[in-house]
């Protein structure tokens, strides 16, 4: 009994010191970011090295990090990243940060796992343009990798191990400690009144219908253009606009995309799969018009944008 009370007291003490303003976590539809998983350090380190390894591409020009720049929100700032051949790809690069929290990968959610995502990007003829046999061969030629792989995996350098190492690394790429996360964890003073109003509007207007959960999005599909034909209004239809239709050939899946995460949304412009919105304001406008079918006041939009900016987390101890 006394042990319990001492422990309880100690816990209270620690919590009290570490998080002075923390009350009970809030029960919201948006959930705080989970802790970074503890994975095999050897695999994570190998994945980190591979993430920056241009030998994954056919002409040794592109690494994962070429498009998924950790210092710029886990993606590049271009509308369309350049493939190994210098030509832009058809779709905007999503952030690698918190990607492990998405229920599926790619804009149209065509694969379930990070491993499968990696597998496709390496062999994509517009992205890395390589093939796994070559990649494994190239990596095996380097004693550094041979050693690192044999330390992390019993069967050494294989395609599956390369994918697993990269996925392991990517699972550690979470951006904790955003101000909104702190708010969700009970530190309600961390947000300004404006930001709290923004969150209020975010919920009231129904943004929360799709952008919710731990990743504030990334857990469902949604048609782009629920309340209006976005693509008609935009013009210049391209294949990527078809979304999940490309997978399922189901008319219901036309223009259906994975709802993207809003974490770090303030630093990952441009927005949407077609990179059509360069600013948060533009993106919010599009969302209101085609997804929510509402006509909010400018004040409400500004509040929402202020709220969205509280979703920016930290990487390597620094805010993104």
């Amino acid at each position, binding site marked *: 009994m006394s042990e319990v009370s001492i422990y309880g007291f100690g816990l209270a003490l620690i919590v009290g010191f570490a998080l002075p303003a923390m009350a009970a976590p809030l029960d919201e539809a948006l*959930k705080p970011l989970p802790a970074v998983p503890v994975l095999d350090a050897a695999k994570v380190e190998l994945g980190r090295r591979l993430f920056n390894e241009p030998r994954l591409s056919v002409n040794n020009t592109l690494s994962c990090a070429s498009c998924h720049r950790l210092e710029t929100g886990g993606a590049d700032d271009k509308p369309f990243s350049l493939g190994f051949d210098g030509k832009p790809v058809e779709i905007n690069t999503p952030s690698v940060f918190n990607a492990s929290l998405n229920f599926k990968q790619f804009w149209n959610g065509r694969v379930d796992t990070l491993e499968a995502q990696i597998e496709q990007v390496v062999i994509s003829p517009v992205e890395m343009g390589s093939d796994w046999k070559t990649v494994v061969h190239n990596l095996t030629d380097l004693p550094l990798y041979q050693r690192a792989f044999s330390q992390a995996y019993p069967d050494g350098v294989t395609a599956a191990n390369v994918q697993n190492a990269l996925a392991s690394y990517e699972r550690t790429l979470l951006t904790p400690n955003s101000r909104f996360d702190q708010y969700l964890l009970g530190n309600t003073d961390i947000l300004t009144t404006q930001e709290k109003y923004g969150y209020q509007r975010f919920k009231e207007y129904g943004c929360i219908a799709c952008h919710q959960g731990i990743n504030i999005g990334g857990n469902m*599909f949604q048609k782009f253009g629920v309340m209006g034909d976005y693509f008609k209004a935009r013009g210049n239809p391209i294949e990527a606009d078809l979304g999940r239709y490309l997978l399922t050939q189901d008319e219901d899946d036309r223009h259906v995309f994975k709802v993207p995460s809003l974490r770090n949304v303030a630093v990952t412009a441009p927005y949407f799969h077609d990179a059509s919105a360069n600013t948060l304001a533009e993106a919010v406008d599009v969302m209101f018009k085609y997804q929510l079918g509402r006509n909010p006041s400018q004040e409400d939009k500004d509040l929402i944008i202020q709220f969205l900016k509280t979703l920016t987390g930290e990487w390597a101890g620094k805010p993104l």
Partner: protein
Amino acid sequence: MSFIRRHTSLLLLGLVALLLASTLTFLYLKSSRDQTASYTQSRDLIRQLQQLNAQWDSEVLKARIAITHNYDPLVTPLAEMTRLWADLNNRGTYHSLQDLARWQASHAAYQVAIQEKARLVDQFKSHNAVLRNSLAFLPTAEDDIQAEFNRIDGEGRLQLQGVASDTYDLLLSSLEFAQVTSDERAADILVGLGKLAINKERLPSDFQAPVEILSNHISLILREQPVVNTLLERIAAVPVAERLDDLTIHLDQDQQAADLSDDQYHRYLLIFSTLLVVVLVYLTVRLLRSFAEINRVNRALQAANETLEQRVERRTQQLKDAQSELLDSARQAGMAEIATNVLHNVGNVLNSVNISADIVTRKLRSSKALGLGKAMQLINEHRGDLGAFLTEHEKGKLLPDYLNQLVEAIAVEQQGMTDELAQLSKSVDHIKDIVSTQQSYAGASTLLEPVHISALMEDALRMNAGALSRHNVTVVKEYGQVPEIMADKHRLLLIMVNLISNAKYAMSNLSDRARQITLAVKQLEDNTVQISVKDDGEGIPAENMTRIFTHGFTTRKEGHGFGLHSCALAAVEMHGQLSAHSDGPGLGAVFTLTIPMTPAGSPL
């Protein structure tokens, strides 16, 4: 024959026992596979899958009634189920070949179901999200419209009262439609929407926007509500739980089958172990019986052995007795032989004594001393005129010469008698010698004493001298230079006497040539002394060569077969060896005694 049969049957029984034991091991291994645990674990996984599936269903319903906006709970059960499913697939469950096909079919059916359900849930999420959003928006939209109404003053407001109530009706219809989706209500809403579109035209322009928004959202509800409802029905219709039940039933059946076969294995185990026990018991009984049999035979053998030993002992005793008797008789015979020899020799010498005495007697009877008496008688007759008589008397004149001649004759006579008496005395000495020699060997002395081999040889010869001279045997002596040695004089003499006697006998039938014994004594280089007696008599046939030293062997009619045997024994007792050699019948034989040479005076 019966032994071999028994042996074979035992071997067969052993083989049967071995066979049974290996069958039991096989059955044990077959039945001890931990199938039950595997089934339990698999069933446990399926139960977890079912729980997750149920949880998933309940989350879908929660999302349906808008308890939560968080759609993560609709994602996590599937992720967890995918993980468990992989776990289940990695688990090795035991299926027979035809069963495996059915199991895989059930697997595939589950996967089809779960994929369909996942697809439908994803669609549900999308449609439900927008539907809930619009439904949640309706009161707000109505409020917005009412606010617009309130801003319009009295008259216009009255004018638009119908529009307001229509809008309100439409709102209510939509909310009801959300609860009870029917084609009737859908038609009502459609009519309402049409009215609203007409009414809208009559409204001021800034009033039109909220009405249009409301109308859009109601259209969305009208569109999405049936979709969501259908999706829910289809989700509920996806037979994931049934497929999982199928798998469980399958596992149950498999386990029952496995249990049944286990049961069978156990029955077989029981039967075979019973058989094994029976065989082992039988073998044990057999073994015990043969053990008893062996014991019995052993005891009988032991008894027989004891009897035999007693008999052998008795027989040995008898033999010993016989031998000692024989030995006694042999000794007596030997002694008799020696005594005969001695008497023979003594007899011979007595003959000489007799002759000498005879000669002396005859010489005394015809002694010239008698003439001395006659001469004395003449002298006595002519005592008075002795001078005259001697000078004138015819007879008297011859007397001095006669006396002179007489003196000479008596002197010769005396010389002869002295010689003869010396001979006599020598003969008597000889007898004494023979007797004393015999006496000195009569005792069975085993004492070692200094011996001159050649002198001993002479003694032996002397003991046989009578016989040898009677048979005209020439003795050739080839005595080498041998020092005085320490030896058992009695045994040596016994051997020598025997060998000489044998040699003599061997030549007794010889008539065509002179009989000759060669006695040889020489010292060999290996510190032994070799004594050989060689004859040129009848020889020894090769077939007898090996038996001549055995007890009881003899070629003589009156022989007792003891001589050579005892000689050989004596030789061995002296640490020597007696051997015989013959070139064949009629070619004579050599007996050689070899004894170790221990020079006299050296330490024994």
